[in-house]
C-alpha cells in the first residue's frame, strides 16, 4: 500500500532547478533506497518531501493526503521524521535532552519512549546524562536516529546515515536500520554506499542529474549490469 508518494517533482535552490520531474514511491513496511552520483538531487528530493524546500511543480502525498509544501513541524505531526546528514544532534544538550527534543510536540511523560529508543540503541544508554557534543560520530548518528524515533513515526527519512563512519560502524548502522524497519517503520534512505543500501532495501531508485534513471527491487538493481557499471563501481 502506497504510503508516501512524490510525483513529477521539479525543485531547486534559487534560480537553478536540481530536480526535473522526479517521482518516487514508498510503500508501507518497505525500505527504499535513493542512490546515484553526487549532485543527482537525492538529498534535495528528501528535503522537498520533508517540507524544507518548496517544489516548483509536482506533488507529495502521504497516506492519501497532499502534503506538498507543508512546513516541517506540520509534517512531523503526521508521522514522518527526518534525520539530516550532518549536524544532526544538539551538542550542548545531553543525550536525554536530545531525545526529549525529538518528542517536543508531545506533552506527555517521555520516559517510556526514551526506554524504547534505548532498546534499539543500547549503547546510548550510558551516555544518558552526557552532552551530545562529547559523543563520537557513530554514537551521534545513533542518537540522531533515536531522536527521530521518539515520535514512533510511520516513515523515517534518512539522509546518508553512513556518511563519515568507519566500515564497522556502517555495518552496525545498517543493521539498526533493518531492525527499525522490522518494527513497522517504513524507511526512505539516501545513500552514497549504494551496494550495501540496495542489499537491504526492498526497492530502489537511481537518480542522476535530477532525473529518474532506474528503478526496481533491490536485487534487480544490484544485478543490472548498467547500474552496476555506472553506479556501483565504487
Amino acid at each position, binding site marked *: 500500500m502506497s504510503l508516501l508518494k512524490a510525483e513529477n517533482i521539479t525543485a531547486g535552490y*534559487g*534560480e537553478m532547478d536540481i530536480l526535473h520531474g522526479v517521482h518516487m514511491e514508498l510503500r508501507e513496511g518497505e525500505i527504499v533506497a535513493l542512490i546515484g552520483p553526487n549532485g543527482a538531487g537525492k538529498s534535495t528530493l528528501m*528535503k522537498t518531501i520533508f517540507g524544507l*524546500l518548496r517544489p516548483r511543480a509536482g506533488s507529495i502525498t502521504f497516506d492519501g493526503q497532499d502534503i506538498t509544501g507543508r512546513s516541517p513541524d506540520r509534517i512531523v505531526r503526521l508521522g514522518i521524521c527526518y534525520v539530516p546528514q*550532518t549536524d544532526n544532534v544538539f551538542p550542548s544538550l545531553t543525550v536525554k535532552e536530545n531525545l526529549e527534543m525529538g518528542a517536543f510536540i508531545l506533552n506527555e511523560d517521555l520516559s517510556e519512549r526514551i526506554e524504547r529508543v534505548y532498546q534499539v540503541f543500547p549503547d546510548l544508554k550510558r551516555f544518558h546524562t552526557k552532552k551530545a557534543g562529547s559523543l563520537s560520530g557513530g554514537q551521534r548518528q545513533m542518537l540522531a536516529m533515536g531522536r527521530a524515533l521518539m515520535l514512533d513515526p510511520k516513515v523515517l527519512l534518512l539522509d546518508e546515515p553512513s556518511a563519515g563512519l568507519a566500515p564497522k560502524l556502517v555495518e552496525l548502522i545498517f543493521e539498526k536500520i533493518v531492525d527499525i524497519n522490522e518494527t513497522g517503520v517504513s524507511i526512505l534512505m539516501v545513500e552514497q554506499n549504494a551496494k550495501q543500501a540496495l542489499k537491504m532495501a526492498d526497492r530502489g531508485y537511481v537518480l542522476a542529474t535530477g532525473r529518474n534513471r532506474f528503478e526496481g527491487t533491490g536485487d534487480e538493481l544490484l544485478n543490472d549490469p548498467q547500474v552496476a557499471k555506472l553506479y556501483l563501481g565504487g
Partner: protein
Amino acid sequence: MDAAILWAFTLSLALPGIFLAVRKAWVILAGIAFLIAGWGGLIAIYVVQNGVSLREFLRQALSVIEGFAYLPQIYSLLLMVVSLAGLWVLLTRTNRRTRWGAFVGTLLLWSFYLAAAAFTGVPPDRMFSFLSAFLIIAGIYAVLTLGLNIQWGYTGLFNIGVAGFFGVGAYVSTILVQDPAKMAVGAGLEGFFATYFNQPFLVGFVAAMAASGLTALVVGFATLRLRADYLAIATIGIAEILRLIAANEQELTEGNRGIPNIPQPLHECLVIPVREAPPCTLLGIEIPRFLEPAQYNWFYLVLVLGVIFLAFLALERIARSPWGRSLRAIREDEDAALALGKNTFRFKMQAFVVGAVIMGAAGSLWAHFVKFVDPQIFDAISRTFLVWVMLIVGGTGNNRGVILGAFIMWGIWSGTNFLNDVLPPTLETPIGRIDVAAQLFGPIRIMAIVIILELILLFRPRGLLGEERVTSTMIEPKELRPASAPESHSHPPASKED
C-alpha cells in the same frame, strides 16, 4: 494676495521636476510653454492693471521673497529639489535626449531666477547664503560617504565607527591650525609641540588625513580579521573611546568646551578685511582680495566641490583597477579570494586606510567650515547613522548614487531643521509643557529617517548590499545550502577551535 501668488509661483517650479520624470520631449516642452504662457499672462495682467513696469514688478517680487521669514530657505530648497531631480536624471539615465532635457531644464530654471535678480538689482543674498551653507555641508557628507563606500561598498568592511575617523580628522586639523593665542585652557600641547601650531590650512588638512589613516591602521590590525558583526562592534567601540578621549584629555582638546574660532583657509587672503591689512603673497605675487565676508562661503564651496571631484575620480579609477577588482572579490566571497592566494588581510587593510583617509579629509573640511569642534562631533546619530543612510539611499558601491544620496538626505535633514525654527520653543500640551526642539522635531526627524531606512532594508536591501548578485545566504534558507558549498562572506568561520 502677494503671498498667495508667491506660493503658487514657488510650487509651480516643482512642475519641471514632474515633467522630467515623464521623459517625453513633447510633454516637457508643453510644460515649459504652459509655465511661460501662464505666468507671463498673469504677470502681464498684473502689470497692466497696476501700471507698474515689469522691472518694478520683479523687484517687488524678489524683495518679498528675500524679506519674508523663511521663504528664502523654502525657495532654495525647492530649487534644490528640482535641481537634484535634474541631477539624478543626468547621472542615471542613459538616453541622450533625456539627459539633455534635464540639463537644459535645470539650467533654464536657475538662469531665470538669476536673470530676474540681475535685472531688478535685488541680490538674493539670504537665499544664496543658505544655499551655500547647505551645499557645503552636503558636500562634506558626500566626501564622508565616499570614504565609507570604499570600505563597505567596495570591500565589504562593516564600519559603524565612521564618526571616529571623521572626528579624528577634525580634531587633528584643528589642533594644528589653531592659533594658540585663541585657546583658553591648555593651548594644546606645550613645549615641543607648541611650534607646530598656527600652521596653514593645507598642513592641517594633510595631517588630518594622515592621522585618520594612522588610526585606521592601528584599529585595522586589531580588528580586520574579525567577522562582520564583530568588526561593527569594534568600530563603534573605537568611536566611543575617541569621544571619551576628546572629552577628557582637556590639555589636548579643551574637553567638553570644544575649540572655537577655528581659522578658515585663505580667509585673510581673499576676504576684504575690516581694517587695512597687507595682502598675502604667493611666490612674490600679491593675491588680490575680492570677496565680501558673506561671499567667502562660495570659495569654500569650490574647495569642497574640488575635494569631492578628486575623491570621485580616484574612486572611479580604483573601481576599474586590478586593486579594485580584488576588493570586490573579497567582498563577494572572502574565502574564495583566500583560496586564490590573495592576501586578503592586506587588501582589507589598504581599503580601510584609504577610506579612513578620505573621512579624515571630510573632518578637516568640516572643522574649518563650522569653525568649532567638540566631542559632539563623534555623535553616532548625525555622523555614522546619517552617513550609512546616505550610502544606502544612494546605493552601495555606486559613487554617483552615493553623492546624490548625501545631498538628498542632507536636504531632508536640514530641511526639517528650519521647520524647527518656525514653531515656538515650547508647547503646552495636556501632558505638560514640552520642549519642541528636543522632544518633537529632533526625535520625530530621527524616527522618520529610521522608518525610511527600515523600509529600504525590508523591501530593497540592495541599497545596502550593493548592485551585485545577492549572496547565497539571501536566496536560500541556510538549511538548504548543500553541505559542500563554501561559506558566504557574511558568515566566515571564526578561529577554528575544534
